[in-house]
């Protein structure tokens, strides 16, 4: 078998490693794995990689609820636009005022 054919199967393995190989769409790959020990070894290692990461568990024992709610309580509402006291005076208005 040509190297390019193996490469093709390697790519297919990456795509189908989380699937059930007994399905009809995986027939060719299944047959290839049965007769190619290198590809079978690769497929096995690919499966084991996923299982290892899936089994690597982390346990969160705390609770962030109080902290998050406290942060939400002290939060100031977001101001949209420029606050009034920083608005520049309307030049036309001030002219009017000065004329009186």
């Amino acid at each position: 078998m040509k190297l390019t054919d193996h490469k093709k199967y390697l790519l297919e393995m990456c795509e189908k490693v989380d699937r059930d190989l007994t399905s009809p769409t995986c027939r060719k790959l299944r047959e290839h794995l049965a007769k190619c020990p290198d590809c079978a070894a690769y497929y096995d290692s690919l499966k084991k990689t996923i299982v290892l990461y899936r089994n690597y568990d982390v346990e969160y024992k705390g609770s962030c609820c109080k902290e998050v709610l406290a942060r939400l309580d002290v939060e100031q509402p977001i101001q949209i636009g420029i606050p009034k006291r920083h608005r520049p005076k309307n030049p036309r208005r001030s002219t009017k005022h000065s004329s009186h």
Partner: protein
Amino acid sequence: MDDEPRLINSAKSGDKIAFGKLIRKYEKTVYNFAFKICRDKEKAEEAMQETFINAYRGLKSFSGNSKFSTWLYRIITNNCLMMHRKRSHEPVVSLEDADLFRETGELQVPHWGETPHDAVLNKELKEILNKAIQKLPLEYRIVFVMRDVEGLSTEEVRKSLKLSVPAIKSRLHRARRFLRNELNPYFTK
């Protein structure tokens, strides 16, 4: 009875007790996912808190077209990406498979020995798993964790990350190959 839609509606109207219940329901999921992406307890806690704060602020934009958890995954992912971009300069890594082929052009795949079947992994192996996944660019890591570790469907990942299905598949396949190659020396020594 699932009272999640009611809790979401109450929280949307500003009911913080309802939002607190949503936090309690999802804090483990959010923390675990953030940890699997950041690989650091402090960063994961920070990402979790930011996720809930952002979720509360943006709750009105949650339409209910996707699952609430899918929407949360999107926020966590964005937070992890932002934290990552602020703090690190990611080295460029090659995701190629060159080592699989001998110079002669033949395929060379060493067989792996037994791997631990249970969730109790030894310290050395945990470190190796951590190192390997930390080398993987974050965009690839996120897709791998969502699909293969958390078990989300391609459709859920698509909705969370707003990526095309081919882009998700390409990242997933490359991530799988990369991690497998990184772990290879440990299991074939």
